[in-house]
């Protein structure tokens, strides 16, 4: 994907060559090295036992329950969560659950209406790569991951809420 930012050792970089590419359900998979396929397709391939040979990422829509991918998490290199609009906040919860409840360790990618001013929030919820909206400058968007980032509550990146650290003083 073009216009993608990734966290490398926790630091945000523009990824010069990102292999991942979103693939429609009717598109064949053989010519694509790193396809991101829909949850439905992933599930049917998995049931048929055809998944093992492929290095697929899976795309979850905002209505999909992260629990349903939990059994296959160990082998998934990438999960993409979709922001149909940047005002739709469901993917923040999905990301948080994938990381904290289901222990997902692979790449968690934000796709869709992904904009600079929300990137910091996404990182807090466990996203590790960001497919910035195509018409936006990725270099500008990168600024969204630098600068002040304190929050009070716990998050994926701050597993302890601030009050635990305050009272430890």
């Amino acid at each position, binding site marked *: 994907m073009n216009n993608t930012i990734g966290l490398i050792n926790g630091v945000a970089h523009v990824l010069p060559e990102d292999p991942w590419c979103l693939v429609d359900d009717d598109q064949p998979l053989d010519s694509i090295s790193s396809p991101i396929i829909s949850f439905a397709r992933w599930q049917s391939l998995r049931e048929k036992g055809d998944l093992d040979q492929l290095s697929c990422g899976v795309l979850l829509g905002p209505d999909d329950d992260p629990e349903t991918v939990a059994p296959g998490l160990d082998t998934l290199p990438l999960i993409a969560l979709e922001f149909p609009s*940047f*005002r*739709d*906040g*469901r993917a*923040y*919860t999905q990301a*948080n659950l994938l990381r904290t*409840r289901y222990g997902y360790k692979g790449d968690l990618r934000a796709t869709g209406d992904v*904009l600079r*001013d*929300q990137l*910091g*929030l*996404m990182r*807090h*919820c466990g996203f590790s790569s960001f497919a910035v909206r195509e018409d936006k400058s990725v270099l*500008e968007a990168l600024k969204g991951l630098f*600068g*002040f980032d*304190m*929050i*009070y*509550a*716990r*998050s994926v990146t701050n*597993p*302890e*809420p*601030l*009050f*635990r650290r*305050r*009272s430890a003083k």
Partner: protein
Amino acid sequence: MYRYDEYDHALVQARVAQFRDQVARRLSGELSEEEFLPLRLQNGVYLQRHAYMLRVAIPYGTLSANQLRALARIAEEFDRGYGHFTTRQNIQFNWIALERVPDILQLLADQEMHAIQTSGNCVRNITTEAFAGVASDELIDPRPLAEILRQWSTVNPEFLFLPRKFKIAISSSEMDRAAIRAHDVGLYLYRGENGEMLLRVMVGGGLGRTPILNETIREALPWQHLLTYVEAVLRVYNRYGRRDNKYKARIKILVKALGVEAFAQEVEREWEQIRDGVAELTSEEYARVAHEFQAPDYERIDAIDPDFGAWLARNPAFSVWVQNNTRAHKMPGYSSVILSTKPGTSAPPGDVTAEQMRVVADLAEKYGFGEIRVAHEQNLVLPDIRKRDLYALWKALRAQNLATPNIGLLTDVISCPGGDYCSLASTRSLPVAKAIQQRFDNLDFLHDLGELSLNISGCVNACGHHHIGNIGILGVDKNGEEFFQITIGGAQGKESSIGKVIGPAFRAEEVPEAIDRLLSVYLSYREVEERFVDTVRRIGIAPFKEGVYQRETAKVEASA
């Protein structure tokens, strides 16, 4: 009151810089209005009919004298010399230039204030009652938990793009003065048998076009679980709340759709996964925050002050004011004083000028401990006043037109700003408020009527909380003309109820007469000491309906 530490300071300062950058990017066109909209809303900036409006958070309605002076300065330097206090204990400035908002936020940040999350589809300002910490009927001071919730909800990354706005209120007194049952989450704090702090969690309240009182989903929740429980509620809401229709997106609709039991089960299921762990509150944290709300150094004084008694006997106007505008304090010899922002026709409800703010700040320092509260009813409160100082304070307040003895009476009108300012409003609520205050300006009559709340909303969004006014007035637009629908029997507090519509709507100029007729019915039916709302509950709305519309019909027939 709570003072910021280095973390709190760092957060609000960084937020100013962030929003300054966002405004600059909006002005340069780098950000589209669509992209900028939620950013500005989450910093309290609305676009109104004539200008931008800035809503400043006053967490749980508590201000220091210097904070109030800062608000006065903002009113003077950035607005037209006044501000408007809202039903959610915030203040709004109505005539703001977008370019100057970062400078205002800077002034606020320097005084430990902000406008974060006063709008937008996120957790809004946490509210409680104006007499927290001083009320004689208080069980536990709710402010420490309110502050803990404020911090937790501020920039909580998972919950900034909820399906819709989310309001939380907490109260802990015999009388609920924070309208907690009309909130998305209402928290009632009380003590268990062994003295432990417990919470009743109520979910799914809200006014707007579908007024619903919230329902209890959890009793006796130990306070340590406050944050995890609210987190579970918000997570369920964020996942399953409707996003296809803005009018069906509040949590109340989800609770109704699932049924309160099923909703509660869903929350419990989520909560079981997160309840024990690092997010559980600690006694250290509670103590740290509660320390900031320690009682001031009250003087040990007698409950009865001879000078005060003498002034009461000598000056009937003072005595009436004391009776109406002061409240019992937990310390002997002290009172809490309510400053009415509803002087009648001279100013809209909730509006306070910069000069008034400065005088109130000075008075809070001179006679109190430098603290001011904002009440849900849009009035101001000086929480700690010695009874012996009441007379001098009253005279000073009178000079500022802040001593109208009408607290809790008909003319203590709660009103939204309406179509004069708000671009959502379908009608102008302020002229109606004014006409009512003009018609019923006889204090003896008002006192005879007794406790009676009147709430006006300029549209179905119900910012004036008309559903829970004893008399509620709702502005509706019918083919470009303003009409006002009247409800009666609404109430806030422990016996909250939603008012019932009495019949067809009125034109603006007919409203005072309709109110007058409602009052006549009440006066002819009431039993000794019976409040308006109790009469409505006892006899139902039929006699009121008849009293209001019968003559109306007769008039139409006579003219036919």
